[in-house]
């Protein structure tokens, strides 16, 4: 069976086996293969001698270089923190005006604030902080809980309706669903609320509804939103006169809000972001809003 044949193309003999027409040349392994095998084996060997590699029961070979990754990472983190400590700590400590007065410090805070915002806040408030349906824009003049440094820092620390023990809490009642207002009053007050930012609504066909709505508002809404509908920072109640809307300012959206109520949530960042990072973010958020001033 085993009959070696000479392959005319290569000049080598076959091994003499024939598998369904397939034969094999009895050619030695090319030298270059041995060379590369040697090189890769030696590389692995050197690697294993220098670095931790082989298990020895309950321990392992430590390697001649004595590298300990756990110590190395701790050192790297400490270095990184030290490298930015000089400016980052100042951002966390200084007032917005003082930071504004130092262009280099302000630029560093905004640069870093942008990535912090992108990784932590953008999923709700948008990459540019413009908000979206249900999530307030941070780039306008309207603040629910106040736009000064202490107010922003506190909102970041405790969140809104977040479950944090000091959480800011705010709820708009479901006036329609819970039967606090009847259908007529609800539609009237919706017309009135829209007229606060859009005086044209008060003219013409709906003038009566707006007048009736004003009475409903004074009785049911003014306690949080204020007699003039200017909102109240102590309750996180939005200003209804400024033309900025969280859940939409068209009639249907206003009616929906009145019908089912609202209770937006912002997580608390204490325990998730360091005080320094929250300081940087506060400045960044303030910076976003200052464009609109």
């Amino acid at each position, binding site marked *: *069976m*085993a009959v070696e044949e000479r*392959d005319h*193309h*290569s000049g080598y003999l*076959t*091994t003499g*086996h024939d*598998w*369904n*027409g*397939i*034969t*094999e*040349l*009895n*050619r*030695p*392994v*090319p030298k270059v*293969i041995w060379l*590369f*095998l040697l090189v*890769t*084996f030696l*590389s*692995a*060997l050197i*690697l*294993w001698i220098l*670095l*931790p*590699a*082989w*298990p020895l029961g309950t321990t*392992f*070979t430590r*390697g001649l270089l004595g*590298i*300990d*990754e756990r110590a190395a990472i701790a050192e790297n983190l400490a270095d*990184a923190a030290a*490298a*930015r400590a000089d*400016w*980052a700590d100042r951002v966390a400590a200084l007032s917005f005006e003082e930071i504004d007065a130092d262009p280099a410090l302000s630029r*560093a805070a905004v*640069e*870093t604030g*942008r*990535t*912090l*915002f*992108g*990784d932590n806040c*953008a*999923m709700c408030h948008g*990459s540019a902080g413009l908000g979206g349906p249900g999530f307030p824009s941070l780039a306008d003049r309207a603040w629910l809980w106040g736009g000064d440094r202490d107010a922003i820092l506190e909102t970041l620390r405790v969140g809104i309706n977040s479950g944090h023990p000091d959480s800011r809490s705010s709820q708009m009642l479901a006036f329609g669903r819970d039967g606090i207002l009847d259908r007529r009053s609800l539609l009237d007050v919706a017309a009135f609320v829209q007229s606060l930012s859009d005086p044209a609504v008060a003219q013409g066909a709906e003038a009566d509804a707006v007048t009736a709505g004003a009475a409903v508002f004074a009785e049911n809404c003014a306690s949080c939103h204020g007699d003039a509908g200017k909102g109240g920072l102590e309750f996180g109640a939005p200003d209804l006169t400024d033309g900025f809307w969280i859940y939409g300012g068209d009639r249907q959206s206003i009616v929906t809000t009145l019908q089912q109520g609202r209770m937006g949530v912002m997580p608390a960042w204490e325990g998730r972001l360091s005080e320094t990072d929250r300081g940087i973010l506060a400045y960044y958020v303030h910076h976003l809003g200052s464009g609109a001033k």
Partner: protein
Amino acid sequence: MALVICALVAITGLAMAVAGHQDPLAAQGYVVLLFALAVGLVVINGYFAPAPDEERLRHYYDDPIKVGIILSMIWAVFGMFIGDWVAWLLAYPELTFDAAWASFGRLRPVHTTGVIFGFGGNALIATSYHVMQRTCRARMPGQLSAWFVLLGYNLFCLVAVSGYFIGITQSKEYAEPEWYADIWLVIVWVTYLVLYMRTLARRQEPHIYVANWYFLAFILVVAMLHIVNNLAVPVSLGSAKSYSAFSGVQDAMTQWWYGHNAVAFFLTAGFLGMMYYYLPKRAGRPIFSYRLSIISFWGITFFYMWAGSHHLHYTALPYWVQTLGMGFSIMLLVPSWASAGNALLTLNGAWHKVRDDATLRFMMVAAVFYGLSTFEGSFLAIRPVNALSHYTDWTIGHVHAGALGWVALITFGSIYALVPILWKRERMYSPVLVEVHFWLALAGSLIYVFAMWNSGIIQGLMWRTYNDSGTLAYSFVDSVVAMHPYYIARAFGGLLFLLGAIVGCYNIWKTIRQPSDEAVVLAGDHPADAVAEPAE
């Protein structure tokens, strides 16, 4: 006997449906039941056929191979369609249509299972049946176990894929099917191993051909990996959910020992078996070096086993396990290249055929991609390189260089070589369409891989770039936005690849529909023991 098995499977399906009536398991039970009933009907139908004469024993048993090839192509189109959908989904998230079953987390395993196990697995089973009979010059013993393995395996794939859509998964990459599907696969796989060994035992050749070493390694090691990684305790016999026997870093290491060797023995060893038969056969050339075959076989089978930990660089896995895996990954390079080299150098003296014959060119380019992706694999296993590449699209590009460029191309080449032989045609219906498929597949692979290299390296760099203030310059979302154009390019490359597979299906269909040409029966294409003892 076949009917008894169908009945048993149907009863199991019914039992699953009853036991899990308040659980997703019930739906899986119905899938099993319907599958068993359908196969049972086909078997009953065949009961009234005239008894086969002894003449059949003088030929190889090729019927399950034909069915396997067709199933493989169906899975290919299905799996690649889902894959391309997922690719577009990553560029345009609204393509999930707000449906739970169409979310990324469910479609992705459908894609991977569809192409790896559906397309690749069926192709491996079919070609291994063909190669083992031919190179042993022996008809496989019996017919039942060959059908049991093929159809049982497809039932496994079907149960797995239908389960993902309704949210069943054990969340282990490439090992997502739950405990009942895993147990079924063990039964099927052990039967496969026994069938392969029994055919080898009947061989009429003194030596066992290289391709058979690889197929055997593939079957044996996959059995071992599958059993160990899927050790789990079901919540109850009426529940689809189970809990793994491993937890924490042991679970991660077991999973990647499995995952890496699934690539090694499912997606490499088996397909090397394919290459070692169809490439020299088609080229009409002897293997470049028998001794090189030995070195690369033992190199690959030994070193792959140790390299899995390089998937867990810079994780909670102890540092020493990472360096150990990294060393073995480097040592793995040369045996891998020796295989690719052995294949390419076998073509010496037949390069004019490579130029003219797209089928052989499929296999040649596959060997080149194999060489490239094994180099890339060893390179990415080096920790500092991995620090850049890990978790980025570079990994996706690497996997697809192997999956599209190597696995799919060698499979298409082998299928184009095999189909005319099986159906006794002179050649494929249209060599031009084979050519079209080749260029679509090559262009698709290259676009895909280049897009992912770019996006992966950009991602990796964006994640590690610091600004002057000493903090990271980009947020994660910035890197997602930067990926958008590459994701579109990747989806386009995938589309080309899918179109190629559809062209291939059409060509195979037309080849089968051509009138048979009995004159093409290859001389000597029958077992050596043509008058051997009847199979049981």
